[in-house]
């Protein structure tokens, strides 16, 4: 390659008029042997470009990337994407089971008697029952005596029962009157509706 052509190419290179192919030619020229002394100053630039073009990622990059990609795929897509509908179903089943057991226990609690006692010996049952019944009859006797006493006390007061009876008769008459009035009013209302 003659240096005149290279000089022209270089001039165009500095002015950004070269094509990519011509730039490649320049790189080839300056990376080769036999570069004229007056152009030696440009060798470092083009050899730098040539060297940098061959820089690549280290060999184990692909393996590292593959491992990292598999990791993200596992995390992101398998668990979240695919299983989301299943998770929804599981959540609703859990909710139903929870509600079911809750209701079951609540109803069972209501059916339970408040307290229970268990006896093995029939005599003990008899004893307990008689004791309870005696207690009940005692209480009944006490209350009977008390009410008899109250009746006797009232009799001792010598109240004029006839006047009280007449009072209650008066009240009954009033009640009858007001009842008749309401019936008449209702009849009126029905008639009016019928006329309409």
């Amino acid at each position, binding site marked *: 390659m003659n240096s005149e052509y290279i000089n022209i190419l270089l001039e165009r*290179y*500095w*002015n*950004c008029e070269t094509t*990519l192919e011509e*730039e*490649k030619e320049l790189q080839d020229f300056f990376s080769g042997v036999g570069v004229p002394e007056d152009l030696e*100053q*440009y*060798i*470092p*630039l083009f*050899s*730098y*470009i040539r*060297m*940098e*073009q061959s*820089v*690549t*990622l*280290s060999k184990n*990059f692909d393996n*590292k*990337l593959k491992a*990292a*990609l598999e990791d*993200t*795929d596992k995390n*992101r*897509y398998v668990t979240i*994407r*695919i299983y*989301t*509908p299943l998770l*929804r179903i599981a959540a609703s089943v859990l909710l139903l089971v929870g509600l079911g057991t809750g209701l079951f226990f609540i109803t069972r609690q209501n059916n339970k008697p408040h307290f229970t006692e268990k006896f093995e010996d029939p005599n003990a049952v008899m004893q307990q029952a008689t004791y309870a019944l005696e207690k009940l009859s005692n209480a009944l006797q006490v209350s009977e005596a008390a009410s008899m006493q109250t009746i006797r006390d009232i009799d001792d007061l010598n109240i004029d029962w006839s006047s009280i009876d007449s009072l209650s008769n008066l009240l009954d008459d009033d009640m009858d009157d007001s009842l008749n009035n309401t019936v008449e009013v209702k009849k009126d209302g029905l008639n009016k509706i019928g006329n309409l």
Partner: protein
Amino acid sequence: MHSDVTFFSFNRHYIMSIDSFHKIILPLKDKLFRLAYSIVREQAEAEDIVQDLLLKLWSRKEDWNYIDNLEAYCFRATKNMALDRLASQAIRKTGTLDKEKEELYFVEHQSPHSEMVRKEQHYLIERCIDELPENQRLVFHLREIEGFSYKEISESLSISGDLVKITLHRARKRMKELLSEYK
């Protein structure tokens, strides 16, 4: 019923995206790495950025339908991620510079003279490029290292085609000046 429908569309997306991931995105990985490296200047960090980007893209594959140029999008995203990292590591950067100097010292004592000179020149150019403004550096990288057309660069950096040409012109001019300075 509803879950069946989502499951189906998910499957369709999945197959489509596996395809475009392998055909469009994965082949870009070295280019994306070089772009990230041109910004952060650290192998491990740049690889980390590319892996992060690919994972992010993979996890949002449903959105790819809304991106009209997936390839350009990858370059834009890589550029932004790398610049973010660089900003968050502004303090650590001084440390890495020292490490590089150390490497050079090591080279000087171990390798033949020509190898040392070559490495030194390489480092010199790298420093020159690092001195360029950010947009000039990015355009320069995409054109010279990746051999992108002006249209591809304008899409990858979302700037106009004219601006790409102007920026590249400035970058090359500056490189020419720097090269004559170090002569």
